[in-house]
């Protein structure tokens, strides 16, 4: 995840500028403002809708196709973004807002293993409980 400025974070979290960020890694078709199109995989997207496409195909006005390895689409060049049809746009947007678009996934702690700190704390806890029970036994006898 790249570094977002405060303004970009606001825009991504509160406006529809979140869509290029959400579509990172997906194949999209973007119509540009001069009646041309570009199709490719969104590699990087910032909070201002600027996209970098990889494995891109540029489609000119007459339908001619031109391959590009990298294609940068500035935000003001974009007229519209075709959201892939396998995504339900409304559902995706709603879940993204609930989850938080910029919230990174919490890395699962290494498969049930405990850290040294946790282990030591638990061992000392058990020792304390044993000591308490021992004292109780001594009091009873």
């Amino acid at each position, binding site marked *: 995840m790249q570094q977002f400025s405060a303004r970009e974070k606001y825009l991504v979290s509160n406006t*529809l500028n979140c*869509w290029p960020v959400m579509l990172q890694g997906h194949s999209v078709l973007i119509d540009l403002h001069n*009646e*041309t199109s570009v199709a490719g995989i969104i590699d990087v997207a910032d909070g201002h809708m600027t996209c970098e496409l990889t494995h891109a195909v*540029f489609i000119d006005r007459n339908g001619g196709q031109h391959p590009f390895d990298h294609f940068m689409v500035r935000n003001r060049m974009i007229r*519209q973004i075709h959201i892939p049809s396998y995504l339900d746009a409304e559902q995706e947007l709603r879940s993204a807002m609930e989850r938080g678009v910029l919230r990174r996934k919490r890395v699962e702690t290494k498969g049930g293993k405990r850290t040294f700190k946790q282990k030591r704390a638990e061992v000392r*806890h058990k020792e304390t409980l044993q000591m308490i029970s021992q004292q109780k036994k001594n009091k009873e006898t």
Partner: protein
Amino acid sequence: MESRDRKTSNEDDSSEISELDVGSDRFNPLRALYEPNFRVTDAVPKVIYQNLAAFESALKKFGIWQLNKRQKPGSAEGGDQGTSKKASTSEAVDILPPERRFEPHQMPTTSSRKKHHRNIFTYMEAAVGPLELLTKCISPASHNESNERRRVRVVIRKHGSVGGSVEGELLAFDKQWNLLLRNVTETWKRRKYNYGEQNICDTPVDCTGRLKELGITLPRTVVKNLNRKNVEIRRELPQILIRGENVVLVSLIPTK
């Protein structure tokens, strides 16, 4: 003489002992008080009370003959051996396995502060002014099937003039007039093939394989001839996001 001396010493000893014995008739309290190593009894008490108040409360509670018997904390009547045995047995059963028992003030604080929730949906609900009209187009998701969502027509600009229009169901909008539409029909006019100059790139290459690899199918275009130089192009799109800069006009399509 010897016998007399023996008798005299014996008598003195016995008189001393009898005077200091608490249980005898000849007990002399004054002498007992002034005896330096005097002890009432050699028996060790079973229960030692902490102070006079504890002794007094025990005296009231148990009586004079129960004072020297060890009282069980569970049972009030300690005299009965059977009862005491049962009490001890039940007590042993009742004892929980040892674990940490925290006071309420030691538990984590429950925060009553409400998290700040603001996103695009709260913005759409709170929209005022011209955007309020767009809010009415967006029905709540729960009523999606019951009432038909009203379609909007968005007039799109070209580089120097109005370019065309887009009709679709409005899903979301924001303050920059970015619009999320579904089931879209896009219509615009442009010059015919030979009259439109293409000078952006060099010779086109067939990239159908790459497009297939990407999984993108270009939308089908329906071309209608208007006159000698112009055509009208229409195409159907599943869902698009229109950037707000290109929006000229948003109008509601009246329901039939």
